[in-house]
């Protein structure tokens, strides 16, 4: 009983981190048809910058703001300066972002070294909560809360606001949206920056749980890809459900079949692909 409850909590909190990444990945693809492989870099860089700023200031909030801001800046530069110069073709775009993935990972290794490090938890969430015989670390509940709030905010934004309507219009048909006076160019930069920021946030709040280390960028990127493949590219709901599913599979896989940990994620994904190539909630 305790085992199941704890593992479920761990799985759900990890699923929320994956959701933060997959949501950005999915939005960027939905609007610009860009497969952004540098998304893993945003996660890693956000966490590393936060790590340095925490060491300097001791404040988790300041560190989170700095990490997110740095990555949002990188995202804007990538979109405005680099990706805009490429033709609308998925392969050069993907390869360019892969170049950034390699560069950011290698430069981070040079700056922060190869030893795994852990971001300190904010003091507010150091404690554990007791529910009868169960003991939950409150920080995991905090992570779940952040994911739920972001998910709800994104949903409200997309469905209930003017900005969301413009976004949906541009995703549906960018040319028509442009013709009706929507500034799709600005919207694209905004979505790219926002997606990068979400990934950075994932790295920052995931840092105390998972640690920061070379290679974390690839690991999280690949899991986020599984999430969007399972959930369907361009679907917010898909990113949420997919995130939960992969988070739980990953946790129970590692706990129950440590030898086949990765296989327990990729095999169900292959099956879903075979049955529904566009994912659970993908349109197409």
């Amino acid at each position: 009983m305790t085992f199941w409850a704890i593992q479920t909590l761990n799985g759900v909190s990890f699923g929320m981190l994956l959701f933060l990444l997959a949501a950005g990945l999915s939005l960027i693809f939905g609007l610009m048809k860009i497969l952004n492989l540098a998304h893993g870099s945003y996660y890693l860089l956000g966490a590393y910058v936060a790590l340095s700023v925490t060491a300097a200031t001791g404040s988790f909030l300041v560190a989170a703001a700095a990490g997110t801001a740095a990555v949002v800046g990188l995202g804007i530069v990538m979109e405005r300066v680099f990706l805009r110069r490429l033709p609308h073709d998925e392969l050069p775009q993907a390869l360019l972002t892969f170049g950034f993935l390699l560069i950011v990972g290698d430069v981070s290794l040079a700056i922060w070294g190869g030893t795994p490090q852990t971001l300190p938890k904010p003091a507010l969430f150091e404690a554990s909560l007791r529910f009868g015989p169960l003991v939950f670390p409150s920080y995991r509940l905090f992570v779940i809360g952040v994911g739920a709030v972001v998910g709800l905010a994104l949903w409200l934004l997309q469905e209930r606001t003017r900005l969301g309507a413009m976004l949906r219009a541009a995703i549906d048909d960018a040319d028509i949206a442009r013709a009706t006076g929507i500034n799709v160019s600005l919207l694209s930069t905004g979505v790219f920056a926002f997606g990068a920021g979400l990934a950075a946030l994932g790295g920052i709040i995931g840092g105390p749980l998972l640690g920061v280390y070379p290679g974390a960028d690839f690991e999280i990127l690949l899991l986020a890809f599984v999430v969007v493949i399972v959930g369907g590219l361009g679907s917010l709901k898909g990113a949420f459900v997919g995130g939960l599913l992969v988070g739980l599979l990953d946790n129970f896989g590692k706990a129950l079949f440590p030898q086949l940990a990765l296989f327990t994620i990729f095999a169900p994904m292959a099956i879903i692909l075979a049955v529904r190539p566009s994912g659970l909630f993908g349109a197409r």
Partner: protein
Amino acid sequence: MRAVLAGAVGVVLLAVVPLGLSSYQLGLLTKMLIFALFAMSLNLILGYAGLPSLGHAAYFGVGAYTVGLLAVKVVDNFWLDFGAGLLAAGVTSALFGLLALRARGAYLLMITLALAQVLWGIAFGWRWLTGGDDGLPGVPRPGAGLPWSLGGGLAFYYFVLLVFLGLTLALWVVVRSPFGRALVGIRESERRMEVLGYDTWRYKYVAFVLAGVVAGASGNLFVYYNGFVSPAYLSIVFSAMALIMVILGGAGTLLGPALGGAVIVLLENVISAHTERWLTVLGLIYVLVTLFAPAGIMGFVRARLRGRLA
């Protein structure tokens, strides 16, 4: 005619040059040939049929692991092991092709990546069989079952060269055949080919499997060359490297990707000797090539030739 002449000069050079090389240089040249072959295999689907794959390492890795596992743990017989490596790569690409080729564009990239990750996960997690992250060491050079041993550097080089030339010739025949022409037609406009009555899926599928087998051959050669294989050779980094080799050389030209593969291997060796930041340099190559040289080396050469003639 000029192309045939240039080809003949190239073959003679590849045959004669190694005689004057040090064993280190000879090893490097051998590796260049192996990776050139790997890049050419991806080019068949990417350059000719217009099918990008972010999981081409899968077939290279399956070939390498099959040969390695058989040679180390079952039986060290060249014909058996090499054949099994090709077969395993072919079966894998036949299976993956069924799943992947329903998608195109970015979806195809993602699905091929995800499928390759399944294999990476197995190689990484199944420690007792594959050695996990530590890889599979101790693969001997081919010798058993052959009339003479390929243990020496020069003998092994000529063996690799022979396979390379044979498969290059085979690819040349394929891309010049009506089948190859149909692939180009599909790349340019799949819809038009369908209207013309081509069963485009079947063409793409055959090309996909063929590319997998050739990639498997390069993986087979590599594990003999390296004596060792690890999950890195199934990873996204390796798959993406194959893509940049093809683009750097010039997608859709027969020999451009081979050149791209050779250049990347050479650069890795030279740059790694001077700095630990090879991956940064490799990343910069991705950025620069996609921004400034999308047609690759061959595209550049062709534009210059055209300029001179005009």
